[in-house]
């Protein structure tokens, strides 16, 4: 975390992330009332979840501010996770 910024400034930026997460939660529930087709509904649900996850990891988990090499702890397992999920979904096993 940048040490030059005050508690109030950080609180404000965390609150913005929180509001964004709440809006995205409302959105992901809201889009279930629209039927894009089975596959597309799953894709939209996963995309919103990935976006929410990125916000949490980037800001709340301080990855934006830490050593860049620490990001591989997210990239590598996330790569395996997504590969696994997509392979199992679309190979129809």
């Amino acid at each position: 975390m940048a040490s030059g910024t005050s508690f109030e400034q950080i609180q404000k930026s965390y609150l913005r992330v929180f509001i964004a997460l709440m809006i995205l939660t409302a959105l992901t529930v809201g889009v279930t009332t629209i039927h894009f087709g089975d596959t597309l509904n799953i894709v939209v649900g996963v995309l919103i979840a990935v976006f929410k996850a990125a916000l949490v990891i980037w800001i709340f988990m301080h990855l934006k501010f830490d050593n860049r090499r620490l990001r591989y702890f997210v990239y590598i397992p996330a790569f395996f996770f997504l590969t696994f999920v997509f392979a199992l979904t679309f190979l129809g096993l």
Partner: protein
Amino acid sequence: MTTAAATHSRFNTGIYHGKLGMWVFLASEIMFFTGFFGAFIVLRNLNIEVFTASAHQLDKVVATINTAVLISSSLTMALSHVALERGHEAKFRLFMALTLLFAFAFLGIKSYEYATKFSHDIYPWTNTFFASYFTMTGFHALHVIGGMIPMAWMLGKSLLKGYPRTMHHRVETLGLYWHFVDLVWIFLFPTLYLIF
């Protein structure tokens, strides 16, 4: 953590040992939950009708409220860390207490959901969807409980003896774990409740 090596950033990584250790653990945790998601997808593809019918029996409203509760707990956890880092112990206590409160609320709502399922004769052995549902949410709930123990410990220590500013690394490390628990729920929520 009294030794310098434990709390000070290492020259070669730029982060302290506790944080590095937590990230290694979280990477393994991602793979742990990946197994459940993999099993869920395979079982779903084999029994799409069962999964669709069963998922519609879940309570979306209650799950949405629980998602909001858990996201709120992530916010207060992040704030409790900055508060201690900046030396505001009273604020640290307030936000840590709120985090613990949200965690209790989450478990309370989850218990209500489980109780409702049981009263409708729905159990883990009902079908493969509910087997997955109870396994995934059950392991997630265990992770929530696992996070509440150090929260209560830190809060208790702060109330009794005071929690020094130098301990903010511990709060940050616990925060990493707690945000991960929130992340798992962010993926479980659409998977179990929304996509069917």
